[in-house]
């Protein structure tokens, strides 16, 4: 962290205060309220009573919650590395200056990021149609029998594909931007020393990307653990494959909105928030340790 250069005074608050005030209103207050809710229990018959930590105890022993957490962990372990790796390769390729039409690549691969998640999911949902959709069309045209992307066995992969599609360009751009800041003189001297392209990548480019990688990873972890929009919209097309406890976020949502168990939902959400924070923090610590 920087900030060694400034004298300490309250003056900075005049800039930070507006943000902090709104932030407190739309984030901290609801979180505080959630914590409050999570300590109670309300029933359709019998009203509200203080429950202490019962809801948390219940959450920790809830197989639905753990299966949801397991699913997003799997998603995190598979989708995030694939997406970041892909983004990294493209960023390195564009940065290498060896592509025809570099600018076009850069912008075109980024474009899906500007597509709203709702639209992206509706679109992929149409395309996933294995009977009459694009998959069905390919099956007919090429005589294939591609498996149904919306079946329970493949649904997680299909969601992973949508998320990858949406964010690969975004992450690519973050990496690419980080690479652009490396002074050209560094490459030149490396080449004069006889270093090959591969050596330049490992010795100069990857270290330069460390900060960007850490940030991209943290945002991806948070995104994975909060997976919601894509499965919730696809649910309509794959109801049995996407259960009410498909992801922790979906589960918390189902609890509060169809089950009216908002107390318990609040507890689930807070447990999930703590887990996310711990992991994100650990990644940040590891990522910045050697700097």
């Amino acid at each position, binding site marked *: 962290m920087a900030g060694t250069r400034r004298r300490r005074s309250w003056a900075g608050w005049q800039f*930070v205060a507006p943000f902090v005030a709104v932030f407190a209103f739309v984030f901290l207050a609801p979180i505080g309220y959630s914590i409050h809710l999570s300590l109670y229990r309300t029933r359709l018959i019998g009203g509200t009573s203080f429950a202490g930590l019962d809801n948390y105890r219940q959450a920790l022993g809830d197989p639905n919650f753990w299966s949801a957490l397991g699913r997003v962990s799997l998603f995190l372990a598979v989708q995030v590395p694939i997406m970041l790796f892909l983004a990294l390769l493209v960023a390195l390729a564009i940065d290498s200056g060896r*592509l025809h039409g570099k600018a076009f690549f850069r912008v075109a691969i980024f474009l899906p990021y500007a597509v709203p998640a709702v639209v992206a999911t*509706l679109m992929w949902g149409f395309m996933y149609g294995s009977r009459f959709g694009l998959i069905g069309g390919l099956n007919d045209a090429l005589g294939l029998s591609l498996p149904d992307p919306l079946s329970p066995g493949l649904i997680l992969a299909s969601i992973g594909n949508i998320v990858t599609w949406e964010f690969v360009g975004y992450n690519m751009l973050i990496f690419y931007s980080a690479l652009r800041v490396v002074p050209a003189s560094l490459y030149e001297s490396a080449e004069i020393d006889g270093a090959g392209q591969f050596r330049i990548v490992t010795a100069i480019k990857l270290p330069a990307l460390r900060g960007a990688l850490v940030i991209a990873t943290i945002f991806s972890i948070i995104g994975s653990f909060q997976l919601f929009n894509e499965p919730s919209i696809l649910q309509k097309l794959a109801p049995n494959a996407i259960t009410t406890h498909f992801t922790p976020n979906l589960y918390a949502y189902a609890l509060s909105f169809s089950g009216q168990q908002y107390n318990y939902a609040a507890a689930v959400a807070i447990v999930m928030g703590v887990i996310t924070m711990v992991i994100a923090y650990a990644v940040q610590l590891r990522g910045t340790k050697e700097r």
Partner: protein
Amino acid sequence: MAKGIRRRRSALLTALTGIVLIYSLVPLVWLVLNATKTQEGLFSSFGLWFDDGRFALGDNIRQTLTYDDGIFLRWLGNTLLYVVAGAGGATLLAVLAGYGLATYDFPGRRGVFATVIGAVAVPGTALAVPTFLMFSRLGLTDTPWAVIVPSLISPFGLYLMWTFTREAVPAEIIEAARMDGASELRTFYRIAVPMLAPGIVTVLLFSMVATWNNYFLPLIMLRDPDWYPLTLGLSAWNAQAATAGGQPVFHLVITGSLLTVLPLLAAFLLLQRYWQSGLAAGSVKQ
């Protein structure tokens, strides 16, 4: 980028990266192609080509814009309002706060960023009920404020402006302005803002995307379709196929999606010079 100029172009590398390019573009191509089809045509033709003989794009666009008394335009107007107020406000707050965090040392400074990152980890969906109740007590639900106020916070924007300010605004210049007796705000406005321009555009664009794509929050907060943003409206049209007596309008959902995506794509293409350099400084320093 000077360093790239003298490099040999590689067809192989271009082809390999081309795979990712195709992956990125195929769904968009699908969207454009299918926006040219009638509802019947959607069902009867191959997804990645035109429907033989019928090119209904103009007709679809006209229908999209006029269907249900032209509510699509109303949704578009709402979305613009949310984007201007929400993304504009978010940018303003993020720029101010990012600048404050980067330029000053003040009591509680470390706490601010830690809290913001920590709060982001709490699933937003879980906050829906509490936020809704708070807002409804304040009489804000079912009004544009319910969508705009929560959009004012962009943690990513804050992070970006923070790092960007440290890169782009040398401490010496601020210090010099202070010596000259300029007030803190004046220093910010006169000296820092021009230097921060690329970063501001970047944050603005990313906040625009976030607001334009906002779906969950309006879903909870709004019940009058007259206040819907486009995302919610499109999903309502899509759901219409599932109502007794309702009219399926898949072709309008697809055409409407295309019309929803276009303005953002245009903004990104037109402003790419700015946001790319904005991101550059933002992402490199940790």
